[in-house]
């Protein structure tokens, strides 16, 4: 039997100290992913530090008028938070589009960010996988890859990041506060996850022992509308085939602010900077939106069976931007 030790941290500092003091330690949030991976043999930590009870379970106003979301806030609670729903519908919608009600009741904000890919080969220890065992090869590239990445993948890994919430955070210019052995720092949510390159085993830019404390979302842009839209195989409890988070402000027919991020397309939430460059300052119409989507998706390199993701993501983006522009025009 694989044994491990377990402790409940009382403070973030204590948690980080505990991590430093143990070999192969892992932080445990809601356990909806880590525990699964332990059962699968993908993760075999020797020491678990339960951080779900840390005093990080509040959604608070920031001095700038944004929201600071503690890492232990449950997905259901964050999705239902009236202030978040009012200021950032995209975030609430993204959370509600993810997982199932039962999972959202348990999953935490920090854990959601740090969940691992659901690539079937990553989860199957009997097959090669560079993310799980660097250097063994990628089974997905030449195998079942319908759900895999079309953007930013490498010869070493074609996995996608599964989170919906993280896509919304990337579009909202959120900041991730982390505490590590070397102290606190803040990482932009859009840069928190990384591309696989030749080190696909590293999902994020977190350094060893760093613990997510909170996610801060800046106040909404004036006049901006935001929303999330996801395409999936069944109506609930299915990961995104493709999804899009968008924030759009339009004044007198011209886009004044745009933030766009795709989910289900890459190893990380895909902040669409090229699309945003096309959008800002352009006329808010379907032609612009299509041009913007194409500017981003032109870089797509589908693998064969996932070619459908490119037109799907384009359609999602154009549709969502059009909806937001209409709402913005109507002041709705």
């Amino acid at each position, binding site marked *: 039997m694989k044994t491990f030790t377990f402790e409940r941290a009382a403070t973030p500092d204590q948690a980080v100290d505990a991590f430093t003091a143990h070999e192969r330690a892992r932080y445990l949030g809601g356990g909806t992913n880590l525990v699964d991976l332990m059962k699968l043999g993908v993760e075999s930590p020797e020491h678990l530090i339960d951080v779900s009870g840390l005093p990080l379970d509040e959604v608070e106003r920031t001095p700038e008028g944004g929201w600071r979301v503690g890492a232990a806030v449950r997905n259901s609670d964050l999705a239902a938070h009236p202030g978040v729903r009012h200021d950032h519908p995209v975030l609430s919608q993204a959370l509600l589009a993810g997982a199932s009600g039962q999972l959202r009741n348990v999953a935490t904000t920090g854990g959601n960010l740090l969940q691992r890919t659901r690539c079937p080969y990553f989860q199957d220890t009997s097959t090669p996988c560079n993310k799980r065992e660097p250097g063994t090869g990628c089974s997905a590239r030449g195998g079942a890859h319908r759900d895999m990445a079309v953007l930013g993948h490498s010869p070493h890994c074609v996995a996608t990041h599964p989170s919906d919430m993280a896509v919304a955070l990337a579009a909202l210019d959120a900041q991730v506060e982390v505490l590590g052995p070397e102290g606190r720092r803040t990482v932009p949510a859009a840069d928190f996850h990384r591309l696989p390159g030749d080190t696909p085993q590293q999902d994020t830019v977190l350094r060893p022992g760093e613990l997510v404390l909170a996610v801060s979302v800046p106040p909404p842009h004036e006049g901006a509308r935001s929303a999330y839209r996801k395409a999936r195989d069944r*109506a609930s409890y299915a990961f995104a085939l493709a999804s899009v988070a968008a924030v759009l402000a339009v004044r007198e027919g011209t886009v004044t602010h745009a933030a766009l991020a795709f989910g289900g397309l890459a190893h990380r939430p895909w902040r669409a900077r090229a699309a945003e460059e096309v959008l800002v300052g352009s006329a808010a119409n379907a032609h612009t939106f299509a041009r913007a989507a194409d500017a981003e998706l032109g870089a797509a390199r589908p693998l064969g069976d996932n070619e459908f993701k490119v037109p799907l993501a384009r359609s999602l983006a154009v549709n969502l931007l059009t909806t937001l522009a209409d709402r913005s025009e109507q002041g709705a």
Partner: protein
Amino acid sequence: MAVHDTPDNSRTTDTGSAMSADSVAGTSSTGAAESATTGNATGKSATTGNTTRKSTTTGSTVMASTTGSDSGADGSLGAPVSRREGAAKTAGEARYAAEYTPEGCVYAWPVPATVPRGRVTSMDASDALALPGALAVLTHENAPRLTEPDDGILYVLQNDRVPHRGWYVALAVAETQETARAVAEAVRISYEEEPHDVRLMTDHPEMYHPEKANGGVPGDRERGDFDREFAAAPHRVDATYTLTPLHNHPMEPHAATAFWRDGHLTAYDSSQGATTVREALATLFAMGEEQITVVSEHVGGGFGSKGTPRPQVVLAAMAARHVERPVKLVLPRRELPAVVGHRAPTIQRMRLGARADGVLTAVGHDVVTYTSTVKEFVEQAASPSRVMYGSDASRTGHRVVALDVPTPSWMRAPGEAPGMYALESAMDELAVELDLDPVELRLRNDTQTEPDTGRPFSSRHLADCLREGARRFGWYERDPRPRMRREGDLLTGTGVASSAYPVLVAPSTASVEALSDGTFHVRVNATDIGTGARTVLAQVAADTLGAPLASVRIDIGDSDLPRAPLAGGSSGTASWGWAVHKACSELLASGGTKATADTTEDVQGQQDYARHAFGAHFAEVQADTVTGEVRVSRLLSVFAAGRILNARTARSQFIGGMVMGLGMALTEHSVIDPATGGFVERDLASYHVPACADVPDIDAHWIEEDDPHLNPVGGKGIGEIGIVGTAAAIANALYHATGVRHRDLPLTPDRVGVLS
């Protein structure tokens, strides 16, 4: 015959106060007006309508009444009685195979092969056995020897062959389940890999025509001159439909607990038939059946995957003998796809030829599928085309190739479910070709003799199902033109498909005893896999005995009870019910206190009729033009399945089948990775069974059908017909919504594509 959609609960009143909780029943999940009948629960004997259901005609008068129908007038039969074991299940008191823990019980964990084909060259369990709590590692080198059975999937740990990825090559046994798993993972195995082939292709050089397909149906059939009739037909459809492998995935994984005592083997097994499992164990272990007891008292679903004995019970029994302790084995969910069967993929070419008036002249149905190298299983998907519609000529057949894949087997309505999808999709294409209403096209091809055999149907109310379904669904207001109904991003369409399932029945025995306190004890080794069989059989007994339902005690799910066939092929209630009915009748006739019945001669002496249940599905779907997502917004079906014996559990069966058909149409699919040789979708997060959100409005109705050529209980079997044809109705609705015909299931966004 009466249209039945609101069970009249007055019939429960003769069951005494025990039934007072059964106060609400309906057949609509959404229509409050249709489900508002609340039964009285006065506890007094029923006096209503006991003599109104004695008709023996097969007439087709449809009563449009929606309330107060007279089903269930014979005692408690037909009444929506709730499950006898419901409270025990809710309280966690009903024990499943893994919930028996005999004293000294230890645990097993299997080791699946990680190569797609080859042989085991070495097996090193030294590290594994060094783990504290490790008891044994069974391999082909040390496991008890078995007698080779007909079903090769049970011949486990007997040789070094690896016929497919996931085949069990070892079994770890330890004091705890966790240790057993660690032991299993510490076994070091070397393989000699051989080239493997898991790709199903129509032009595979080793493709052959099987003599028989599943169910003993002929592999190939030809009637008339198909080529000539098809070539001469003024209107033709020639289209190919494909289905991926599909998995049963019952909620309860396959599990067994086994122990030996004084040469007697007892096994608690999650199976659809304890008698069948006992027979298999007797063969494998070369024992007399009287030396074996198999218990399957409560089973959490099977959908065919527990219809044939599965490796868990053999492995548990082997391990228990080896370590001389009781052994419990629960198969991991991720391993089920490789070892408990699946629906084989099919590539089906349909060719229909018709006259201008829609009457079929030629029906061609060519099925290509695979089996494994372990045993031949041929999904008999051409079967529906031999039953459904008349034609001048027909050619129906199967071709199969043995690949290095896990062995396919029964999954709810094997043959009928995939076959009806192809036939009823092609019928829809023909209706479009002819510019004829699809309901009308089916009515014009209705027949009262089975096309392939010329035998008369014992009863066939397909036309009534189609008409009644069309009326309820609002079909006749339909604009046949595709892609005409758009609201925002959504295109809406409606579709129809017929359904049918053969009436199967097998010999069974049963006993009944009249006890001195005025109650009765019925014994029959039936299995309740969640269907309500236990409850329905008690109703049959009470009805036959003229006794209150509460006075009937029934024992099922144990091979020490009078032997009985398995729960499969929608045959359980007919088979067991017949024996229960006969035993009870003989008890009454004899005036004694005990009676035992055997229906072997009755079953063999049946008149030569074609017996099938029929039905019609109506679906409304919405296709999202932005994403290609397809969701069912309404699903309504009407069935003619003989006499309905319990309105509550019947509705549950019908709707369960329909939801499974919805999954087949829209969400469920599985892929074998050509490189690894294994299934990719191996958990319930990636194998997409429909979620509640996928099933917004679903409704099952039935026509009360009196068929004098069935068993004395009068039921045709209802476990499978719900899934048959559902996928076609949904796919046809998608065509109507979008104007694009998709012929590959499931209809996921990658296949449907962006529509705007």
